[in-house]
């Protein structure tokens, strides 16, 4: 038992939400000797990181469909392999689909990348290799900022060494690499990529992933910063971290849950937290909506910050300015999911089966991506939707019956509200997605046995994320790093003593990295040591 726990407290820490970040946080706290209870409103753990059945025996990752930035240190620290997490495919490459079958391979194999780009432009092939090397070096330089909790710049002495490490990292970059970082921080990504490459497909393929799940276009200010964040998180130098777990992304949550239970964490599902209890300006526990009181020294919330601060805390606990900042946080979801059960593998023109198991990107040009963004701003979805497609059952037979497959599609730029409403628009989006897929994989419509489409309001209702935003709040320059989710809660601590945040709305943001959960646990433990 932890000596710091007041005898009257039932737990050292309560974690609200059993999403992957909540579970990571609970694991690290338990590993540090804390008695932890995780409270989940849903009937199963995992939040958005679950694998769900879309038709009998067809299972698919519900929100994120690959683990493209899961922190390897967390995998090792929590011994997740021992708890059942096995990857069916590692270092997943991106394959940018071309209608004529001259697809681009953008993976760790640089020779293959060069040879796939060369038919589009010899200079682009060379430029891409150089660009990849540059990105790898930049990724190494800025990764400490992404993987560690941010340091408060206001109100506390700057004593931690994260920035010193970044300084050292940046010092190792050459002049051109540093200039690229300088340009990316404020600038639109598109203009930089247009300077590097001439091939529209290549420009779009590089830009696409950095807009995934976001409400910005490649020509938006801040898209460069989002790109920097992504390369910092999804790479370890030259190595891509993108993996696919056996059993889908839900397998991660199951492993985290098993690891937590093994460490003595208690997990309760189907319980709804009604209020965070506060006594003498300090968190005292929570009250469930059935009236049950659970006391604890600390509460860590993995849910969206406005729910935490404005929904669960009694009025008057927080200062007015902080509440105003929380109220003003922007959250604009623009991403939908389409899941298909297929009777057989679709035939993509010019793509062999191993490459079909990659992350297939359909984004012909920057302009097409940007048009999708513009359409979403007007409450429409694009006639030419951009998307990322995976067929996990190729390398993970557990997800579909033998000979059949599942396809998961992230459709970018599907706004939360559309003109005419989603009740009418849902079928229209599904039809456009299938039509677009058909251009690259003719005849795919005939293979569809079953399917589902999750537009932002569905994601909101199914996963309990307000606004259906994968990252809980926008990943915009004014909501990143020291400003995420709001000043005053940027390092997982909040103005209320004993309350911490560990969800996607905290640094470094959404995506299944586990870093917000781990860093929140570290912040809690460090704070307890200080006090």
């Amino acid at each position: 038992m932890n000596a710091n726990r007041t005898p009257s407290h039932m737990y050292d820490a309560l974690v609200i939400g059993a999403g992957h970040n909540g579970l990571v946080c609970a694991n690290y706290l338990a590993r540090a000797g804390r008695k932890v209870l995780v409270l989940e409103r849903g009937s199963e753990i995992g939040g958005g990181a679950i694998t769900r059945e879309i038709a009998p025996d067809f299972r698919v990752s519900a929100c994120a469909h690959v683990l493209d930035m899961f922190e390897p240190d967390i995998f090792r620290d929590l011994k997740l392999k021992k708890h059942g997490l096995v990857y069916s495919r590692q270092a997943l490459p991106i394959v940018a689909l071309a209608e004529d079958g001259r697809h681009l391979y953008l993976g760790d194999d640089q020779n293959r990348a060069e040879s796939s780009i060369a038919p589009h432009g010899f200079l682009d092939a060379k430029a891409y290799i150089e660009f990849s090397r540059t990105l790898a070096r930049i990724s190494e330089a800025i990764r400490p900022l992404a993987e560690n909790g941010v340091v408060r710049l206001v109100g506390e002495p700057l004593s931690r060494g994260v920035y010193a490490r970044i300084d050292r990292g940046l010092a190792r970059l050459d002049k051109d690499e540093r200039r690229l970082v300088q340009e990316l921080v404020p600038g639109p990504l598109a203009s930089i990529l247009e300077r590097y490459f001439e091939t529209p497909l290549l420009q779009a393929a590089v830009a696409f992933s950095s807009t995934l799940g976001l409400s910005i276009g490649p020509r938006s200010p801040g898209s460069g910063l989002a790109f920097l964040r992504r390369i910092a998180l999804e790479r370890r130098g030259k190595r891509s971290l993108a993996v696919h777990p056996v059993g889908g992304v839900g397998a991660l949550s199951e492993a985290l849950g098993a690891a937590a239970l093994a460490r003595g964490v208690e997990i309760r599902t189907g319980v709804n937290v009604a209020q965070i209890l506060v006594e003498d300006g300090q968190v005292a526990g929570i009250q469930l909506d059935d009236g049950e009181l659970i006391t604890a020294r600390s509460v860590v919330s993995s849910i969206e910050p406005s729910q935490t601060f404005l929904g669960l805390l009694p009025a008057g606990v927080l200062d007015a300015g902080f509440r105003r900042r929380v109220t003003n946080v922007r959250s604009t979801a623009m991403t939908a999911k389409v899941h298909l059960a297929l009777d057989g593998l679709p035939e993509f023109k010019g793509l062999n089966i191993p490459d079909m198991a990659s992350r297939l990107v359909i984004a012909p040009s920057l302009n097409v991506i940007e048009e999708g963004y513009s359409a979403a701003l007007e409450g429409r979805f694009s006639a030419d939707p951009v998307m990322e497609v995976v067929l996990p059952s190729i390398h993970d037979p557990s997800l579909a019956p033998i000979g059949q497959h599942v396809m998961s599609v992230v459709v970018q730029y599907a706004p939360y509200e559309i003109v005419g409403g989603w009740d009418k628009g849902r079928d229209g989006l599904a039809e456009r997605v299938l039509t677009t897929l058909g251009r690259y994989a003719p005849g795919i419509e005939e293979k569809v046995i079953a399917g589902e489409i999750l537009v932002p309001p569905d994601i909101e209702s199914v996963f309990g994320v307000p606004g259906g935003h994968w990252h809980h709040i926008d990943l915009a320059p004014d909501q990143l790093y020291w400003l995420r989710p709001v000043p005053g809660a940027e390092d997982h601590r909040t103005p209320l003593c004993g309350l911490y945040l560990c969800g996607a709305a905290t640094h470094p943001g959404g995506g299944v990295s586990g870093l917000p959960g781990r860093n929140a646990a570290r912040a809690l433990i460090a704070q307890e040591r200080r006090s």
Partner: protein
Amino acid sequence: MIDDALIVRTSPFHDRTSLVCLTNAWTTISGTTLVSSYRNVELEYWAMFRSAGVVDVSYQIAVRVVGNEAAEALENLILTRIGDLAAGSFFHTAWCTDEGFVVGEGLLLRQDSASFLLLTRAPCVSFIEMACSGFDCTVEIAGDAEAGLELIGPAAPQILESAGFSWAPALHPGSFVSMTVRGVTVHIACLEHGGAPAFAVRTAREGAVLLWDRLRRAGAQSGLLPVGTAAHTIVRLEAGEPAYGLDYMGALVAPSWRLMSTPDAIGFGPMISNGKTRFNGSAALRDAPRPRRRLVSLAVEGAGTLAPAFITAEGLPVGHVTSAAWSPRLGCGLVLAWIETINNSPPNGLRLVSPVRGAAAELTDSNRDGRHCTLYVPA
């Protein structure tokens, strides 16, 4: 087309005050154009001590907070404990940002258990709204309290009684009453101004002229004079009361943190009720270091130009004057000034230097509490 911002915003009493403003001396407070002096500043000043003076204070904003949890919402905001405020009474209080810097200050009147009226110079309605969000209450500008007067002087109670507001003279300082007399609804609060009886009277804009005329008629025999802001400022400085926007900047409008002030720095520290641990900004104030500069009230002996002026200590600039006036009653100059403090006290060797006259004042006496230092201006 004329930009609305360029249109002069007049007081609800303008139709009457402009008729008797013989000096044509006007000033602007919080965007409202008011008479600076009607005839003679000293005459108006003495009227407040010998008979009565009526001052147009319509620059104040009246904010109404109403609801079952209005008291809890305000308790969470202001420095003073709301439980100390009974229905029908008011107190002077202030409120801060999260960082513990003063946003504004004003009079908080409790009309009943669930209804409050806040009179303030600080334009901070949206801030109060945000502070009250989450509580069962509403925050709105009180349209029935847009026109404000202060009636100051020994004859003030009798004038109010003659004007038909018979309950008003019975009020004791810190209490107020709302009443409707012959079609005019007024809120009358009993203030204290340097020992002289004083009342704040507020009504709706449409009743302003009627109120003015009624008070002028009732006070005609008692020597009631309209008093401009210049004479009113002297009374304010005698009481050592800082003015929002003049002596200190509200934290919501200050362009820099350097220009924001904690309650202690302005002299509002005593407003914080003993034992009150939770109000907006309280956490920041607990950790805040002592203010390095303080707003102090200084008496300057002898004649001299008091403002603009700055203050030096041992030859180095340590402060500047924000408000200044000659007090006929005290026979000295009065200034409010920001001074860099050492261990919470003004430094030694203070001198007031006026760049206009080239004169300097030397500190001859100080009670060392940071207020009411006496300075001497050599002839």
